[in-house]
């Protein structure tokens, strides 16, 4: 998760919009609309500005979290479930490892 470095973000976006406008073959957008009406990109963008720098970073140091993110050869441990009551910060914790 941490491999998405900040320094690559701008470059990635530039490349992405270039491909969309110039290289994307006709029909790709039609296929994507057919795949799902949901647009998940907008949600992370709305969560991120509300997150305070450093809050939730404890998760990245959590032993079980580290074990999960590194143990790529253990199929049984493919799933990590973070649970908690409403309002404890589950949605914000999800964005801890993501680029802005």
């Amino acid at each position: 998760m941490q491999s998405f470095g900040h320094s690559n973000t701008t470059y990635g976006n530039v490349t992405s919009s270039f491909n969309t406008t110039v290289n994307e073959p006709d029909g790709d957008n039609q296929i994507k609309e057919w795949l799902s009406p949901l647009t998940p990109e907008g949600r992370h963008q709305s969560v991120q500005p509300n997150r305070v720098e450093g809050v939730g970073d404890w998760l990245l140091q959590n032993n079980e979290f580290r074990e999960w993110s590194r143990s790529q050869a253990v199929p049984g441990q493919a799933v990590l479930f973070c649970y908690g009551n409403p309002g404890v910060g589950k949605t914000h914790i999800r964005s801890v490892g993501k680029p802005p």
Partner: protein
Amino acid sequence: MASLYCDFLYEEKHSATNILGAILKQLFARDVIPEPVRQALHEKMVLGGGRPVQLSDLVEMLKATIALLPGVFICIDGLDECLQKNRLQLLESLQEIIRASPITRVFLTGEPHVRDDIERYFPEAITIPITPTIRDIEMYLKMRLDQDPTPTAMDDILRADIMRVIPQNISQM
């Protein structure tokens, strides 16, 4: 990495098919559909003659796309906010995807009652309880106090009280 938040406001929209379709869209690197996947999807779309995409086809396309990538993280947030029948279908599909690609990592969040559904499909899932730490709350409060629009109404005693009482109470959530 592909991620999705299940918003209860649109719970009817959060079928396993729509969720996995949204995940697949995000896995197309730089928005370009890999050629073999594009051909297969286009064929299914045309053959379907306007019908929505089928869940079984999506699972196959996810497996094919993930196989082209070095390592995929899938995040699905708010599992308690989709209907249970959709959640079970989603977990079953994820199980199939992980069987085909065991290095795939899946990050899920939800309320505690969802845990039974998850362990039904993933008995060895790693679980972490989320509670705000005292340090998290202190960092957040400090930010809010620093941005106080009426700082003249604040004095050191009130500030110290806020920093002492609120973290104590909230960390017991």
